[in-house]
């Protein structure tokens, strides 16, 4: 039942992702509460000890209290140590769980299910949000549970000594537990809402100055932009000052309650002591108990903010992972035919209104498209950017399915094949070749599992990198850096080409393989790509600018949804 209720919110569903870790979580809560209670015990026992001592009994009769005081003092430190280890262990485990689970859900959505223009943003936000969720337990759910457990114990102890003191403590703790997070949350939400517009205005102004500073300076308009920034800056600072007071109130209230609790509990117990209902020796213990019990209440304000942040992260993640994958795998996939051509039969494609990845309606990108290409053929497909060439390439590997007509391989509709099996036969080198932060060897080996170094060197040679590799001191074991930062644009495209060369695919599809390369380099790479057709592969090069039509058997142009044969090479 709890699971069902949790499942109703994004944050609850995120929590359920890692429910298998409940034991570690319970351990860290128990240790957290015990840590608070050890401090409570230390002060309560101390209060009793010196009150009892003031009655000047035999020193031996104080032994139990003295031992208790020392015990709580030492155990507090040890418990805190254990709690920190347990909670960090939990954080690592949940992080790993969250990463692998959300990644699993992201897989079928890339690239067809997400907006291509915002892909980079979306993916980095995805990574950030998954990481943010690791705080859910430690910063969000654990503090309230620790507060509840330790508060209940404190109230119970106070109530055993004197019910009315327990009641007073319960009221103060409850006030603190509700009012302080509520006020903190209210203050930060109002601030966030009020400041959002002013801040984004300021960001735009500053970004323009950072990026377009030289243009503004050459135009001599520096003063205009400084004036603008000044205005936005003042507005943001004004709102922040206003919200600072709210934030102060939230903090002040918590401080007030924690001090007032000791006063209230003492005041509640005084009549009972005066009447002789309760031994006066316990009065100091009660006051100190009340003081110490607030330790668990203080982090609740931040916990409320933590839960909010995790909730937002969880909702944003669901915006991504909740999308329907653009392609459904067949229930009983057909085996791939051993040969045959890849044929588009009256294929149409439009970003339907249901697809979340394009905002501007459902204008067809491809309409009634017919063309085929076979093994051993080198074909170029050109056309201005944004016309749908990449979409066409993605259709061939079933990153998307056509909305009309069908694509067949050896006469069988691609929808009948298992997607992964199809991509073994038809290999796509996506636009903006991605290099992993690893060695050249491992980056090429992605194209084919378990391939040996010799073949990798050979493939790199075919891509035109032989001389470069030979000059590198570490050869193919050279690291390419984060995102391939240590290699040039041309080298990156060639490594990506080698990755495709090494595969056993029958059809190779390259999407803009020569972008970001200088004209000479682009011409050379294009020649090498087309040359692969000589070894029996079907090669399709999708490009907005072709270097030499002579490299290809056929050159096609995609224009307004239709493929036109330009001229045979």
């Amino acid at each position: 039942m709890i699971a069902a209720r949790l499942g109703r919110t994004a944050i609850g569903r995120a929590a359920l992702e890692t429910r298998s870790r409940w034991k570690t979580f319970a351990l860290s809560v128990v240790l957290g509460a015990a840590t608070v209670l050890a401090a409570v015990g230390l002060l309560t026992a101390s209060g009793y000890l010196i009150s009892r001592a003031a009655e000047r009994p035999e020193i031996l009769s104080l032994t139990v209290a003295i031992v208790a005081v020392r015990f709580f003092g030492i155990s507090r430190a040890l418990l805190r140590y254990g709690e920190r280890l347990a909670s960090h262990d939990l954080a690592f485990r949940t992080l790993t769980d969250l990463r692998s689970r959300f990644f699993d859900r992201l897989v079928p959505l890339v690239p067809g299910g997400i907006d291509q223009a915002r892909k980079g943003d979306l993916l980095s936000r995805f990574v950030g949000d998954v990481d943010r969720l690791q705080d859910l337990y430690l910063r969000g759910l654990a503090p309230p549970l620790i507060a509840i457990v330790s508060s209940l114990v404190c109230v119970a102890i106070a109530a055993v000594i004197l019910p009315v003191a327990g009641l007073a403590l319960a009221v103060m703790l409850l006030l603190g537990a509700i009012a302080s997070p509520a006020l903190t949350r209210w203050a930060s939400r109002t601030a966030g809402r009020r400041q959002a517009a002013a801040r984004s205005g300021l960001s735009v102004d500053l970004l323009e100055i950072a990026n377009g500073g030289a243009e503004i300076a050459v135009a001599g308009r520096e003063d205009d932009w400084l004036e603008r920034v000044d205005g936005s800056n003042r507005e943001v600072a004004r709102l922040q000052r206003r919200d600072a007071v709210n934030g102060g109130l939230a903090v002040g209230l918590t401080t007030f309650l924690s001090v007032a609790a000791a006063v209230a509990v003492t005041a509640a117990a005084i009549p009972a002591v005066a009447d002789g209902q309760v031994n006066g020796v316990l009065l100091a213990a009660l006051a100190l108990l009340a003081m110490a019990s607030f330790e668990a209440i203080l982090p609740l304000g931040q916990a409320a903010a933590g839960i909010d942040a995790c909730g937002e992260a969880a909702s944003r993640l669901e915006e991504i992972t909740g999308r329907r994958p653009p392609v459904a795998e067949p229930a009983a996939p057909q085996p791939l035919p051993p040969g045959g051509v890849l044929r588009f039969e009256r294929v149409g494609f439009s970003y339907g209104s249901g697809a979340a990845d394009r905002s501007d309606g459902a204008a067809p990108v491809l309409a009634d498209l017919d063309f085929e290409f076979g093994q051993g053929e080198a074909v170029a497909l050109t056309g201005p950017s944004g016309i749908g060439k990449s979409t066409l390439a993605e259709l061939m590997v079933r990153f998307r399915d056509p909305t009309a007509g069908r694509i067949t391989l050896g006469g069988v509709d691609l929808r009948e094949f298992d997607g992964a099996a199809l991509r073994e036969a038809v290999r796509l080198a996506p636009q903006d070749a991605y290099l992993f932060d690893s060695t050249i060897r491992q980056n090429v080996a992605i194209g084919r599992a378990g391939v040996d170094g010799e073949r990798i060197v050979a493939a790199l040679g075919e891509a035109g990198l032989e001389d470069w590799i030979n000059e590198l001191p570490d050869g193919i074991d050279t690291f390419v850096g984060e995102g391939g930062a240590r290699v040039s644009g041309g080298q990156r495209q060639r490594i990506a080409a080698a990755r495709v060369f090494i595969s056993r695919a029958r059809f190779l599809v390259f999407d803009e393989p020569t972008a970001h390369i200088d004209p000479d380099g682009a011409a050379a790479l294009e020649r090498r790509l087309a040359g692969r057709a000589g070894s029996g592969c079907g090669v399709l090069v999708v490009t907005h600018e072709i270097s030499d039509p002579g490299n290809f058997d056929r050159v096609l142009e995609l224009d307004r949804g239709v493929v036109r044969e330009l001229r045979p090479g």
Partner: protein
Amino acid sequence: MAPAQGRAPGASRRARDTQRRLARSSRTARNHLIVTVGLGLATTLLIIAQATLLAKVIAGVFLGGDDLADVAGLLGWLVAISVARGLVGAGFESSGRFGASKVMAELRSRLAEHLLLSRPGGLQRESSGELVTSAVDGVEALENYFARYQPQLVLAVTVPVAILVWVVPYDWKAAAILGVTAPLIPLFMILIGRLTENRTRDRWQLMSRLSAHFVDIVGGLETLRANGRAGSQADSIARVGEQYRRETMGVLRIGFLSALVLELLAMVAVAMVAVTIGVQLAGGHMTLVAGLTILLLAPEFYMPLRQLGNQFHASVDGMAAAERVFEVLDQPASVEAPPAPSPAPDPARGPIEFSRVGFGYEGRATLFTDLDLVIEPGETVAMVGPSGGGKSTLISLLLRTAEPAGGAISCDGVDLSEVDPRAWRRRLTWVPQRPTIFAGTVAENLRLFDPDAETEALREAVRMTGLEQLVEQLPDGLSTVVGEGGRGLSVGQCQRIAVARALLSPAPLVVFDEPTAHLDGETERRVVAALDRLTAGRTALVVSHRDRPVLSADRVLRLRDGSLSEVRPDLKGATA
């Protein structure tokens, strides 16, 4: 900060430097410290008063036989004190936020001035987004410093000292325990911090490697899928994560020992104080009021010291934001204005001369050392050459957004280093490689160089750059808001708007950097035609690696390996 994530080694030291810097460079930050010290002293007095009064109440009721009416006055005072402590707490928080917001506003103003006046265009585009985030959102992070760490720092001095002074006359033994252990806490913090520094670094490296692995896999997901490798990655994430968890926990078991020692020190000291007091009370050497006061003060004595470490770590993020802004502010002005500038020369009247000009970016190979170039008035010079060869740098030198490392650039015989760069820039107009579209209407964007341009002139420039179709499609024509928060434009459209801007400028010198990159054939033809009209009668420098824009130039030069050579007119086509 995520609990499981470590921090870059050296972050604490850098944070300390930045704190010093903030205090020195910002008056707001200094004033804020005064307020904090005031509030800190108030808190200290309230803590002592509260403990003393509460001890009196308890002792009066327990030993003195007082009832509620007898101690009502004292309880009243205690309520007042709790209200006062709430107010002081609110004061710390709100004045801290005040301070953070004012300091950040100051830094932002300085940043804007620096980026516009001292180093226009001197920032790497890739890092600007992150810089702006630091400058705008950094306030939140700084709040931790001003509202929590700084108060804690003040309290860590005032509270223990005041309590010690208060306790000595009551009981020197308890005072001795407090007095000996208090300095041990910061001492141990430093010692253990040093000892575990390597471990902390190991842990940080493990964590960042793990995060980088995930970022890498997500970023390359499309490639993984295309190669049939996505399926195995979820397992790999789990396996690698588990391996890192085990290694990191090994590191943490030792890393957390420092906190254990500190906690143990504080807690055992409180226990020792309690036992000492108890023994003295039992012996009749102390009053209960004194004993209770000391006991109530003992935890308060250690509290700020124990908190200091935590708050310091929380404030490191804020320092990182300020530090990022300081880093940019620290970069020297790219071009200094001379103290007594000469009037700006007119490129229409005399030639522009580069003589023996040298330039190289810091930390990279020198681009050129002895570059000579003369551009006659009214001449159009085209420049080609491999990318990274220094063509854009040469433009920066001409725009005076970069200073040559050697040699001189002059116009009409006047050395440009003797001219105010702002005055010189009035003489030229520029189409950059990646033009910026500013948030505002199309018309405002077109009027960048000439804010008073007539609408007729705008329409003419729109027509000449082939933008009329776009303008017709826009809902409000020239008054449509574009740029951030407005309608998005394609790269080609941005480029044409930049050319149209330049067409509206009356400046006698025009500079183009790859004016037709990202344009398809037909559009390129139209833009080149517009360029030809623009350069007619003006002095022009056109950089391009395409053929068409350089065809109508008077001369074509190639910049390669740091030197310029003339491309023979019949070879103009072979530009790369």
